[in-house]
């Protein structure tokens, strides 16, 4: 297992959000975390990244405990984070945004893919055209590409991607999903949060469904297609 989340409990101040969440990812896997709005999907990703510190449980990455570490330490171990709402740096140019993704530090994970700024621009020609534009002036789709590309610059082994298709036009949703499968093909494991499973069912190896801060389903695409009652209960509105 590359990532093993075991029975974590996370809180915002006094509100108890995650009630013993467990999930896992193997090297190179693309796993999708589904569930309705507000069930705790983003909180689960933030707990792995160290933005929210779980009060109980354990999170192992390559066998090392993540709980108690700062986000920058977790990043240096080889985990990349693509937050919801994209969060490019609005006052930095697209090029500067990418430079921010370069990871330096003593315990840098060895990079397998070796992403450099030139390779990123080859893979995202659209970004190259807009390299001197401020982050704030990019379109939603461009911003999404930029956050993903910025994270790639750090050559992570695992990427946590929160609702990458939210608020994008259908044609751009396709582009983003294609880009994520290409990244997975290059050997990066991806844990992706999504609201609608139809977009992700073609690219994900496995699925988890969350409800009220707990995992209520785990299985592959076929199992999810077969489990109509589960989908009705936890996904459809």
């Amino acid at each position, binding site marked *: 297992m590359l990532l093993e989340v075991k029975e974590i409990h996370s809180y915002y101040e006094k509100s108890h959000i995650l009630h013993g969440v467990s999930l896992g990812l193997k090297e190179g896997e693309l796993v999708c975390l589904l569930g309705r709005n507000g069930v705790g999907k983003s909180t689960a990703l933030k707990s792995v990244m160290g933005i929210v510190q779980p009060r109980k449980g354990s999170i192992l990455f390559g066998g090392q405990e993540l709980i108690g570490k700062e986000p920058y330490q977790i990043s240096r171990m080889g985990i990349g984070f693509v937050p919801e709402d994209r969060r490019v740096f609005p*006052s*930095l140019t697209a090029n500067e945004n990418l430079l921010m993704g370069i990871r330096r530090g003593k315990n840098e994970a060895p990079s397998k893919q070796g992403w450099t700024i030139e390779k990123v621009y080859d893979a995202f020609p659209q970004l190259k055209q807009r390299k001197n534009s401020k982050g704030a002036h990019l379109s939603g789709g461009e911003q999404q590409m930029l956050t993903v590309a910025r994270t790639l610059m750090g050559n992570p082994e695992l990427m946590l991607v929160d609702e990458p298709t939210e608020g994008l036009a259908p044609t751009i949703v396709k582009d983003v999903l294609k880009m994520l499968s290409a990244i997975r093909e290059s050997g990066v494991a991806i844990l992706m949060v999504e609201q609608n499973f139809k977009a992700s069912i073609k690219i994900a190896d496995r699925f988890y469904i969350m409800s009220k801060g707990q995992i209520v389903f785990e299985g592959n695409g076929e199992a999810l297609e077969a489990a109509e009652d589960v989908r009705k209960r936890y996904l459809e509105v």
Partner: protein
Amino acid sequence: MSDIPVFFLHGLVYAGLLFLISSGLTLVFGMMNVLNLAHAAFYMLGAYFSYSLLNATGNFWLSLIVCPLLLFFIGAAVERFLLRRVHVYGHVQELLITFGVAYIITESVKWIWGNYPLGVNLGGFLSGSVNLFGLFYPIYRLFMFFCAILISLIMATVLYKTRIGIIVRASVDDSEMVNTLGINVPLVFTGVFGFGAALSGFAGVIAGPLLTTYPGMAAEILVDAFVVIVIGGMGSLVGALVASLMIGELQSFGALLFPKLSLALMYMLMAAVLIIKPSGLFGEEQ
């Protein structure tokens, strides 16, 4: 009236001083969301340290280097050992701890140097005057203005041309994201806080020989620096620069034309800017 160019130059000099102080204040606010009430106390410490060092060595150039360096370490220690500990409790507590630091510094200054004004006499060529197109102007004020320009240029180069600069600007935008990209953001906070304190201390060193050094000097300039960062937009360096020039000139000409009203004029300007643009001239809309 030959007063006008003189007061214009006075305004520029004061603007330079204000920018040295407000740039650190606005950067710290932009990054950490903390309004540092102790920021002007660092300025005052700069002036007092310089006073003592000048008495001991008579070397102003040494003072210009040593005092900001001391303030860097004091500022970094305040961030690392006080501010960081109360961070989890929220902004009000952070504000309170900076207030406490300002209070302790002010009382210590009274205790060590006394509760009365101290004058610094530099002597040498800095205390002379120079003929500027028929106008005799004190060299020292020009020197202050030159220092402010030099520091601003260095700061702009670092912020816009180096990796550290990109990291600082990104942290002003969104420090949580910077942290997830593998950058030791707590260390960046300590560094920027210390750097802001050093700049403020530097301003104190160069202000000492011109303005009097006394325990109320911090509170006095803090008001102006706050007005500058509010008008310029919290977190914006360009805003701090433009607003420093506005307030510098306003204070200078205010003192010439309406000596009793210059403080009121400053608040009126601030109110006018906030009515037109609530986030300040260069601030981002929240």
